[in-house]
């Protein structure tokens, strides 16, 4: 091994107590100084276990064999905590996925960074705090002196992640392990964090191992990539090579499952022209005109969306995109009758949903189906799949006989491509993708005329996402319901929808035919959003990065 290698993993095997199979089965991997290595794979592939093993952070129930050397000569496996404490932070450090939980909410940011500094140096409290402020400006936090005295909740998610990165940098480690560092962030923020990581690696020569499931992140940042599946590395090599010309079957299917992004050929910073024209749907299933709505928080009314003009025609597939806090979920709640509009007009199938109350409003809702994001939470754990699917029937078609109900459930299971015996099983016996398909079957039980799908595939792996979307697409073709598809994933929206609505800060910034808006966005924000999504194709990604840089200069 050369002195340039900062992390070397040899034949790592990890097994958890009570399990027969290994979670990690013989992984070999190395990271050099100043290099970014991506470890990609779907959930359960063992990528996170590998990263935790490298930090010596495996739970006690796990046994690891093989060798992990950090900083050239320090062995991690089998070392007592005392030795590991000397390595963590100083030689190898970690960036976590969720910045809110990685930071202590009761400590100021400066104190948390200073703590990391003082772990390995004998600097005084004052010196450590000075160093903390220095680190904060290094990771691009403006007004670092003042920010150092603030608490985590006072910062945005992106700023918090910068603080986590500052902590990881505190003692100038040889190698940083970043476990899904941008997964919890919006795309525009993700792009900023990726820029920061790229700059830090280039300037300081730190080695970076980034664990991710997002091929776009890989193509944006990584020099080399290791693809993991079921505890093994199935393919590795230079990122450009693996992403454009994968040799392993699994890598190929993984890449093929990623929804294609629209090309970044909108000419970068050219924002101009009249808004795209589109045909307003005649006889819409849902119509929002000048709708304002908000939530009551501690007795105060907090506005969430304003002046929403949106209509969905019968059988029309409309995408609603935006970042967190843009109000897209509020719009879906409005359409579901879960939130009253405080002003404006909200018509569902020509009836004013806002003015209907009690039983009449509930009866109208039989024409609306809903699919939620979290596959774990959208099904009642104490009901069988069959009972869940039949719930709309139980509510709206009380007269149906038991046999008729069972027949309908079987029919719906066929439609979402699940075996019929699934009806008798409980949610925890299904995978995430299967649960989402059960949710879809439930939503369509009464053949509604409007389906509201709120990020239905965001929590799923790409290959599973492709399956669920395929089911959704074919059902839409068969049943012809209008669909409001809420998503933050522009690739999915691009592949699936006819029309797209872009939201930001509670208002619609742009809407039109998907092909128009995503290929020639008129609004600067839409352009920035598009340019921020990393493409899994390294060459296309370089173009996007340039386009984004051009936009930011404006």
């Amino acid at each position, binding site marked *: 091994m050369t002195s340039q290698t900062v992390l070397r993993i040899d034949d790592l095997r990890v097994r958890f107590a009570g399990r027969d199979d290994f979670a990690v089965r013989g992984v070999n991997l190395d990271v050099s100084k100043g290099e970014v290595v991506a470890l990609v794979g779907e959930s359960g592939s063992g990528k996170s276990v590998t990263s935790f093993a490298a930090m010596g952070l495996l739970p006690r129930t796990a046994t690891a064999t093989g060798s992990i050397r950090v900083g050239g000569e320090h062995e991690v496996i089998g070392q007592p905590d005392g030795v590991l404490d000397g390595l963590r932070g100083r030689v190898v450090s970690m960036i976590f996925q969720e910045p809110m939980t990685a930071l202590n909410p009761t400590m100021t940011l400066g104190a948390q960074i200073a703590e990391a500094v003082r772990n390995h140096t004998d600097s005084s409290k004052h010196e450590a705090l000075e160093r903390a402020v220095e680190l904060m400006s290094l990771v691009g936090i403006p007004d670092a002196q003042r920010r150092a005295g603030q608490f985590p909740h006072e910062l945005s998610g992106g700023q918090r992640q910068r603080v986590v990165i500052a902590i990881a940098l505190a003692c100038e480690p040889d190698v940083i392990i970043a476990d899904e560092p941008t997964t919890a962030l919006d795309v525009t923020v993700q792009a900023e964090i990726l820029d920061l990581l790229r700059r830090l690696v280039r300037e300081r020569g730190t080695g970076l191992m980034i664990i991710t499931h997002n091929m776009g992140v890989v193509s944006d940042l990584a020099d080399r990539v290791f693809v993991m599946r079921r505890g093994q590395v199935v393919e590795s090599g230079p990122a450009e090579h693996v992403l454009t010309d994968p040799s392993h079957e699994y890598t190929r299917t993984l890449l093929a499952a990623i929804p294609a992004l629209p090309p970044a050929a909108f000419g970068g910073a050219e924002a101009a022209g009249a808004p795209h024209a589109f045909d307003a749907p005649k006889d819409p299933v849902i119509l929002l005109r000048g709708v304002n709505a908000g939530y009551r928080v501690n007795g105060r009314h907090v506005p969430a969306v304003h002046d929403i003009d949106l209509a969905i025609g019968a059988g029309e597939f409309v995408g609603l995109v935006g970042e967190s806090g843009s109000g897209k979920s509020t719009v879906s709640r409005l359409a*579901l*009758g*879960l939130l009253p509009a405080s002003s404006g007009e909200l018509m569902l199938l020509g009836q004013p949903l806002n003015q209907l109350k009690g039983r009449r*409003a*509930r*009866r*109208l*809702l*039989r024409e*609306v*189906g*809903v699919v*939620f*994001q*979290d596959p*774990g*939470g*959208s*099904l*009642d*754990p*104490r*009901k069988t799949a069959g009972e*869940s699917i039949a*719930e*709309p029937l139980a*509510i*709206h078609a009380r007269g149906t006989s038991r046999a008729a109900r069972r027949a309908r459930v079987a029919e719906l299971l066929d439609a979402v491509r699940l075996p019929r015996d699934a009806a008798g099983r*409980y*949610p*925890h016996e299904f995978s995430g993708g299967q649960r989402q398909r059960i*949710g879809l079957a*439930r939503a369509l039980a009464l053949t509604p005329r409007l389906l*509201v799908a709120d990020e239905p595939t965001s929590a799923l792996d790409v290959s599973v996402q492709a399956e669920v979307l395929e089911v959704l697409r074919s059902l839409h073709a068969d049943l012809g319901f209008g669909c409001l598809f809420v998503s933050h994933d522009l690739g999915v929206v691009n592949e699936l929808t006819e029309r797209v609505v872009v939201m930001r800060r509670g208002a619609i910034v742009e809407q039109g035919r998907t092909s128009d808006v995503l290929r020639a966005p008129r609004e600067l924000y839409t352009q920035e959003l598009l340019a921020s999504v990393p493409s899994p194709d390294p060459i296309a990604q370089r173009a996007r990065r340039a386009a984004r840089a051009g936009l930011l200069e404006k």
Partner: protein
Amino acid sequence: MSFMKRFSQNRLAVIGLAILVIAVLFVAIGPLVYPTDQVRTVLESADLRPGVEGHPLGTDSLGYDVLGRLMVGGRTSLLVGILAGILATVIGTLWGAIAGYVGGIVDAVMMRIVDAGIAIPAIFLLLVLSSIVQPSEWIMILVIGFVSWLVPARLVRAESLSVKTRDYVVAARAMGGSHTRIVVQHIVPNTIGTVVVNATFQVADAILLVAYVSFLGMGLQPPATDWGAMLSDGLGLVYQNAWWLILPPGVAIVLVVCALNFVGDGLRDVFDVKGKTA
């Protein structure tokens, strides 16, 4: 089936369950196998030590056979305990589920009632009541049930608050499901883990409460008896070394209460695991 498997991994819980089964058989079938007269006093055979022929656990000062009395008294203790525990659990569950689901001012009022109720000791209410009316088994069940639903109400409300934000509840509302339907079909079944675990503790508490009241002489009147009353009767003779009058009912109470707590712990483990994997 995996339910039984997980439960059986907790050895104490299995022992607890076994003790409960034995206790129920003891009080239900025991008197049929070992019939004794627990109504008429037989003074000539009073104060016999254990082991005297025909009286394995001896007799008390009125000549009642202690083993037989333990069976008959246990009937009252277990019947009142179990039914009162169930009654308290049912009331508490509905109260808490509704308060948590509806929220707002309804929740505030309902929970302040609970707070006020908790401030009044149940034993005090029972003693006051016993001094007014002569309590029968059914009155004790009702009174204990109506004073001890407060704790389950609080627990279920807390669960209900978290369950109502789950997507399946939101989905049910978006489907046009009525509030009643949501509470009955989704909220209550999903608090069942907490409810069942708590119910075992409720039954244990109720058994103790019956014992307290009877011990203070305010419970059932002779010749009816229960384990608490047996303890109380035996206490007067404790200085004459009549240990066989106190030990059997005392041990019975301790065993049953401990067994219920063990079973509750075992059930909690079972439901916890389910919560993690589901």
